[in-house]
């Protein structure tokens, strides 16, 4: 009796908070058919938002993956001067509000900022362009790859790497042939999370964007803009597009974590 009450209570809470709202947005988007949705997504302002989101992700994600692996490797394998400080810095983007991160970037690259002053003197526009949005996105999605890679590196230990070294592999060979294959699922998992965050970020990029329609709006900013301009069809279409992307990411994450656990069991067995 109690078990069923708890089960259905919990499921009701979940559906009230998650399932029904997300289903509702799909219904709202398609309530007048598919063609208005297609029109809304292929409008100039929408395609520009899609392109900007993809551009930012295409730059920010590879940066964070490469530096994430490098930082993770340094943290797990080399003695860092002040490890707790490095750890704190890496986790900082998770502890900070996106708006505060946006403000920090805004201040640094603004007209009076330490870097901004130089940029303005040399007439290199960064703030309110896609460049500042890339910087904010890199900042906000920094921790994902590092946090996935470090525990795996610590768990697998250095035996295989040492064996490769003894057998005459160079450091680079050892890394690409031994270390990287061992951490590949962690890297993929971290990358997916980075992509999700980069595409979905709103608060941080909002502060450093020009917010000009058709130029400075990413998809999330475009959703907000359309709601405020009372253009629900476009808002729902863009919102649903983002929701579909995150559902795909969710499915990817779930399948992947199953596979990772299996691989982990095989290696320890």
């Amino acid at each position: 009796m109690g078990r069923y009450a708890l089960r259905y209570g919990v499921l009701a809470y979940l559906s009230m908070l998650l399932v029904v709202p997300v289903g509702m947005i799909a219904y709202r988007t398609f309530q007048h058919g598919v063609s208005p949705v297609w029109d809304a997504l292929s409008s100039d302002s929408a395609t520009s938002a899609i392109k900007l989101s993809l551009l930012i992700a295409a730059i920010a994600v590879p940066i964070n993956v490469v530096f994430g692996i490098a930082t993770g490797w340094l943290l797990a394998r080399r003695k860092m001067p002040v490890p707790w400080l490095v750890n704190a810095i890496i986790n900082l983007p998770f502890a900070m509000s996106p708006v505060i991160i946006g403000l920090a970037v805004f201040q640094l690259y603004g007209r009076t900022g330490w870097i901004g002053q130089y940029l303005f003197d040399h007439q290199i526009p960064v703030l309110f362009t896609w460049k500042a949005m890339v910087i904010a996105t890199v900042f906000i999605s920094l921790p994902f790859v590092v946090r996935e890679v470090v525990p795996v590196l610590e768990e697998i230990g250095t035996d295989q790497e040492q064996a490769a070294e003894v057998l005459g592999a160079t450091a680079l060979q050892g890394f690409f042939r031994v270390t990287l294959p061992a951490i590949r699922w962690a890297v993929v998992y971290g990358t997916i999370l980075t992509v999700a965050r980069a595409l979905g970020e709103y608060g941080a990029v909002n502060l450093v964007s020009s917010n000009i329609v058709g130029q400075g709006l990413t998809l999330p900013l475009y959703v907000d803009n359309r709601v405020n301009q009372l253009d629900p069809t476009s808002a729902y279409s863009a919102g649903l597009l983002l929701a579909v992307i995150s559902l795909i990411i969710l499915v990817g994450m779930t399948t992947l974590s199953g596979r990772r656990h299996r691989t982990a069991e095989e290696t320890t067995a």
Partner: protein
Amino acid sequence: MLYLSLLVGLPVAALISLSADSTAWSAVYHDAHTRTVLEFTFAVSLAVAVLNSITGVALAWVLVRDDFPGKRIVNALIDLPFALPTIVAGLVLLTLYGPTKPVGLNVAGTRVGVLFALLFVSLPFVVRAVQPVLLTLEREVEDAAACLGAKQWTIFWRIILPAIRPAALTGATLAFARVMGEFGSVVLISGNIPRTEIASQVIFNDVENGAPAQAAVVGIILLGTALVVFVLLGLLMRRWTRHG
């Protein structure tokens, strides 16, 4: 290291130096609106943390100990708030609990609406913290207690709760910190009404109104609070591991 300090250190240093301005501090201190907003932010974050501890433990319990068709899908759904962009979360809640009232409830522009949005985005923290602990919990102890005549509630309070308490508290603290700085999911549902604003919106508005120093001060207050909460959590954890 150089990369890290350039990317993270410099902006944060810029933020701190921006907030090192006594006029901005006194402006924030004397601004009644900012103070109300900060009070509301802390109160609602605390409420979210408490509510999440209850629902999160219940969810984790059902996912670990109960069995029903579709459990794996429900389990995957828990992560949805992390995968869904915050602005879409806001849009979703606005659609269902907004002015069009498909379920006869309009909380847009109210503090309840803000609470809904914050519960939505912070749902996974406690569940994901408690779940692994519940999985490793040994059933024998509970069975032994039951054999000795303990009622279900006694078992929960005396055996299960002490075991999952550190994990639940960690999850709740993470939720608290996340929610205190939340922005994207509340902008749509709070509807630009001063009464429903939370701290991030004040920061945003201060920047838009050309008062970045005040925005930085509010930001530092938020960061400082998060820091204090995490230090308290660390101290509490240390005490618990020492005693248990």
